[in-house]
């Protein structure tokens, strides 16, 4: 059985996206209100609205389990909102709320997998209901659930004027009863109407207005009546039979005797049932107003746009510098003027497209609040999480990528880094235990760091452990502090004696490191014993358009990102040194800088050998400096980095120092170099 209503597949993406977003916001509010120890009216309404929206959209998708759970939470808040003086067990309430939010999130993740059945939330729901009962008991005795008195109405239709006099004979009347578990029958009814539209003409429904606030209760109480004309009654009945949550449907004949149904109170006035129907509608309108300025777009459309802009930039270059124009001679003042205009515009276009994809890292940071909160409850460490520079904007793809690494690092900091309160007191630490997440830019990289003021790492302990695990590759005395701290992220390395729920298996950090490296990122560990540790993530700003200097080596064209280049120069023989082991150096400002011949590195036989004829390019990154030698510089340009084709993906090109390739304006192809990797593999 499909998990959701047929015909709703197209809405699935939107549903997952929106609901995920709402749940994030909900978590934020819950975290804040839990800390402030008070739920303001605004927050209350916001939570209420969120749950209501989730309930509604889940019901529309036919996900009854999600919608009933959301409904249960909504009920909880209804009680609190109606009677702000109600007393209740706060921690327990938050536990329930977070559990609900987690369960909903989990369900969202699995929604597309047909093999995982819908989760049964009834246990959690029962807990929530029980809690709600306790709350109700604590406050004034709530009005007993009304409305059930109508159930015994029997054949009474419950609505006025279902059968009018002189009605067309062809009009069929159906009564549909939705199951009790269906949270929003009106929503289901609307979906059903839409499906019906294809095979039948709906003349009238009862309740008349399915959008009305009272529609839910009316349908639940009295059933839904549909009057329609159709060519195929079987098809209609089949559709009713297939629709979700429909308990029963039957064709209703016009009663022989025109008996006016009992004149009951108008449905609107009957709504004193537990469901706060009229109250729901009001807050629902509010968010729409200020969300109109935002538009959610599928990411792959943006990717496509970025690709196109990149192609335009490149093509523009090839048009403007076309050899045809250069060879034509004559006066090109006007052409050059237009070309400059065009360049300005495309530059601006590029900036705008890039900025569309930029989102603040706060979205990734905020999620950590939750992680720390949960761990505080479990471990009793009372850690405060603070943010610095959370407004730093990075490409959307990077934010998505940061979630996992951050989670591991923050867990690690709270679990391993921060000591238990007693230990802190014993060590004379008076400042509160804090984990600080900060974000910022450094040249072409995004730098995200996580600092804790915990115990720090003991170098000798790390060293002993590394030795025990056989991770040492050189004599102990030769290891620098940095190298020792970086053992922490090696596979199977955990200094925690105990394995806890959160960390200690030594797997997490290794995976984090590998995942970061896949996208050209780095993970750097630093620590001061007794004062705390810092984990720093550096990821290149995912700008697919980069400024490069292109060089020829033999017949092959390589491009070096400008950001890694210090300077390019011609070399004289007296600056050249070759040591006894065959290592080559160039004297540069009084220092011997290793020389890497690109021709030799890439085994290109026809490369220039003579150092005085080639061109030297001094490159530098965080740890290393080296001089790359190429035959000649061809030009400075902007290129769009494309990954190597899938066929070449297993050939370790990245490890050899080639990060991708790029098609130039004249149709030729250049290889983009990764200076860091070249240095790593050459300077061992």
């Amino acid at each position, binding site marked *: 059985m499909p998990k959701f209503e047929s015909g709703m597949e197209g809405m699935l993406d939107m549903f997952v996206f929106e609901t995920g977003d709402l749940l994030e916001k909900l978590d934020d509010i819950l975290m804040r209100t839990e800390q402030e120890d008070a739920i303001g009216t605004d927050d209350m309404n916001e939570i209420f609205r969120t749950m209501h929206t989730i309930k509604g959209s889940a019901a529309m998708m036919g996900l009854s389990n999600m919608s009933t759970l959301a409904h249960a939470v909504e009920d909880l808040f209804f009680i609190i909102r109606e009677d702000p003086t109600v007393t209740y067990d706060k921690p327990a309430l938050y536990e329930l709320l977070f559990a609900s939010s987690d369960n909903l999130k989990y369900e969202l993740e699995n929604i597309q997998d047909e093999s995982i059945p819908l989760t049964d939330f009834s246990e959690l729901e029962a807990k929530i209901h029980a809690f709600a009962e306790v709350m109700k008991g604590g406050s004034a005795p709530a009005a007993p659930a009304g409305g059930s008195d109508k159930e015994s109405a029997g054949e009474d239709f419950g609505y006025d004027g279902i059968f009018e006099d002189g009605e067309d004979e062809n009009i069929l009347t159906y009564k549909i009863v939705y199951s009790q578990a269906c949270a929003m029958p009106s929503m289901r009814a609307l979906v059903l109407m839409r499906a019906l539209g294809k095979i039948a003409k709906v003349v009238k429904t009862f309740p008349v207005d399915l959008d009305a606030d009272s529609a839910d209760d009316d349908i639940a109480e009295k059933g839904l009546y549909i009057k329609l004309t159709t060519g195929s009654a079987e098809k209609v009945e089949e559709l009713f039979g297939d629709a979700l949550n429909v308990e029963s449907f039957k064709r209703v004949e016009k009663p022989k005797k025109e008996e006016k149904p009992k004149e009951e109170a108008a449905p609107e006035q009957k709504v004193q049932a537990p469901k706060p129907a009229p109250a729901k509608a009001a807050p629902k309108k509010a968010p729409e107003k200020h969300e109109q300025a935002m538009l959610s777009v599928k990411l792959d459309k943006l990717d496509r746009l970025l690709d196109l802009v990149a*192609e335009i930039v490149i093509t523009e270059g090839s048009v403007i510098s076309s050899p045809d124009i250069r060879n034509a001679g004559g006066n090109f003042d006007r052409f050059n003027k237009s070309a400059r205009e065009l360049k300005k515009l495309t530059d601006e276009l590029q900036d705008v497209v890039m900025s569309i994809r930029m989102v603040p890292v706060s979205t990734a940071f905020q999620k950590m609040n939750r992680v720390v909160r949960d761990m505080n409850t479990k471990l009793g460490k009372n850690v405060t999480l603070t943010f610095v520079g959370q407004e730093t904007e990075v490409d959307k793809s990077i934010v998505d990528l940061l979630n996992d690494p951050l989670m591991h690092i923050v867990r690690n900091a709270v679990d391993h880094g921060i000591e238990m309160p007693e230990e802190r007191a014993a060590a004379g630490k008076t400042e509160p235990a804090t984990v600080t997440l900060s974000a910022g830019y450094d040249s072409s990289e995004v730098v995200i760091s996580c600092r804790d003021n915990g115990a720090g790492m003991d170098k000798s302990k790390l060293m002993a452990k590394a030795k025990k695990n056989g991770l040492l590759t050189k004599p102990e005395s030769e290891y620098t502090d940095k190298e020792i701290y970086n053992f922490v992220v090696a596979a199977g390395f955990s200094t925690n004696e105990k394995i806890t729920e959160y960390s200690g298996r030594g797997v997490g950090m290794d995976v984090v490191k590998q995942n970061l490296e896949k996208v050209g990122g780095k993970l750097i560990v630093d620590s001061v014993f007794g004062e705390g540790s810092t984990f720093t993530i550096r990821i290149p700003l995912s700008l697919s358009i980069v400024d490069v200097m292109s060089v020829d080596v033999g*017949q*092959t*064209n390589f491009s070096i990102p400008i950001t890694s280049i210090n300077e390019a120069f011609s070399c004289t023989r007296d600056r050249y040194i070759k040591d006894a082991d065959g290592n080559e150096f160039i004297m540069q400002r009084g220092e011997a800088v290793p020389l890497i011949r690109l021709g030799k590195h*890439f*085994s*290109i036989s026809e490369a220039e050998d003579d150092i005085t004829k080639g061109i030297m390019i001094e490159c530098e990154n965080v740890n290393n400096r080296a001089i790359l030698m190429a035959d000649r510089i061809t030009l400075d340009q902007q290129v769009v980095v*494309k990954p*190597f*084709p*899938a*066929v*070449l993906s297993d*050939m*370790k*090109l990245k490890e*050899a120092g*080639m990060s991708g*390739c790029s*098609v130039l304006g004249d*149709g*030729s*192809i250049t*290889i983009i170099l990764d200076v860091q990797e070249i240095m790593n593999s050459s300077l061992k």
Partner: protein
Amino acid sequence: MAEEVKQDFSQTGGQILTFISDEKVYAFKITDVTDIIEIPEITFIPRTPDYIPGVINLRGKVVPVIDLRRKLGSPDFEYDAKSCMILVESGVYQAGVLVDRVNDVENVIPAQIAQNPVKDSTESCFITSSATKDRISLLNTRKLIKD
């Protein structure tokens, strides 16, 4: 998955594109072929196996080239004006395959096809041409370009 498709082909038959490399007749299923082009300028990529002479720019897309002779261990050949590059696709993998020359498109029926009993080999089945009685080796596209 590739296996299934191949099985299907030996049962259903279909159209194949035949071509010659080192005097032998080979074929790709026509559904794997996206284009046949003259040999464009090939950009060498260091540190790749020798049967990959480099990559080409196919309308802004970078596509790797596979020299069929080298891949199948035949002697090198001075590709000339008659030589072609056949662009093939299998899932996400795309490559240009250098061949001596392209022959024809043929329609084959199951009776002409003999399955290669060796599972997952580069030549998935042997086909007897109805017109020329040539023995044609149908290449396993996925295996040829990815493994």
